């Protein structure tokens, strides 16, 4: 029915036009992410985006990794958190440049924030270049999976206390990652965590996942993890 006088004419006025857009709502983020990837390659580096729930050991993994690789590779870290500089301070204490991005409430990092982080990281290192850049995302197993940051590899972590049902419950983080780290394996005897279930569910979602089992406390699994990183950077 016509909106103006109530007659039987079709309500769609002739002035109405339809426009096919077919553009991703993430187009702007993805454009910036590609730019970040070029920027990182120009720096000569390989970049890894770490995704997990809060408390699954991302920062501790980085500390142990820097202890093992800091002498041979130029490592830089971008830390994402809602508030505080704490994680960046922990990384800097290991002698490596670290930039803290605080999202002020947002549940994920996006490519624009990481763009600023990369410039700040270069500034801190006096433009001496990097071999390996870690981007530690905001602790959250849901939202970060949607946002490309310009990384070359995405790694998802699940710690033993969280439970082996995480891959099945949070599939996007596993389908969009290339590598899956099971952390805190020294706690396996204290928790009802099935390595078999976690790995089976993760591979069911993403058959190409590379999986490592790690304990930052005992050092178990770190030899394989460190040689994997050497190979990725090399």
């Amino acid at each position, binding site marked *: 029915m016509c909106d103006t006088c109530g007659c039987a004419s079709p309500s769609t006025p002739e002035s109405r036009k339809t426009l096919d*857009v077919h*553009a*991703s*709502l*993430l187009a702007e*983020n993805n454009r910036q992410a590609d730019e970040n990837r070029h920027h990182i390659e120009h720096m000569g580096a390989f970049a890894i985006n770490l995704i997990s729930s809060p408390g699954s050991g991302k920062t501790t993994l980085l500390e142990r990794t820097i202890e093992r690789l800091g002498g041979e590779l130029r490592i830089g870290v971008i830390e994402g958190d809602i508030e505080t500089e704490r994680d960046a301070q922990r990384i800097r204490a290991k002698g490596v440049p670290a930039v803290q991005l605080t999202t002020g409430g947002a549940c994920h990092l996006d490519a624009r924030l990481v763009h600023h982080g990369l410039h700040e990281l270069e500034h801190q290192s006096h433009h001496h270049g990097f071999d390996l850049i870690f981007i530690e995302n905001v602790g959250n197993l849901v939202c970060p999976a*949607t946002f490309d940051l310009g990384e070359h590899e995405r790694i998802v972590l699940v710690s033993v206390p969280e439970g082996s049902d995480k891959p099945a419950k949070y599939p996007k983080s596993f389908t969009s990652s290339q590598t899956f780290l099971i952390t805190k394996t020294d706690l396996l005897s204290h928790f009802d965590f099935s390595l078999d279930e976690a790995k089976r569910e993760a591979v*069911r979602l993403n*058959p190409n996942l590379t999986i490592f089992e790690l304990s930052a406390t005992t050092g178990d699994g770190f030899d394989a993890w460190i040689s994997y990183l050497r190979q990725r950077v090399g």
Partner: protein
Amino acid sequence: MHEFSLAQGLVSQLLALADQHNALKICTVRVAIGSQAGIVADSFAFGFDVLSRENGLLKDAVLEIIETHPQHRCLDCGGIMPFTLTKPSCSQCGSQRLASVGGDDLILSQIEME
């Protein structure tokens, strides 16, 4: 909660398109959201409602969300079949090496404007 920032992105895209096409108002917005996109459609719609109310060009806009679904692709024989969460195996060769493809769309497909 990233639905709100995605809705903000949509609003900016719509305002730019309206400007480009000299539209006075946007009537309908059709968005495709995949069931595996990690987006809660209701939260996204809520975010869009809150933001569009504030803007004369968008205040009467109707958001239509089309849900898209993934499929399984067999990594051994290449066969494509419907996505299922329960112990999937390839309907053609029986392989269990299946990758989910698609269903993660987040696309502004079409708008109607005056």
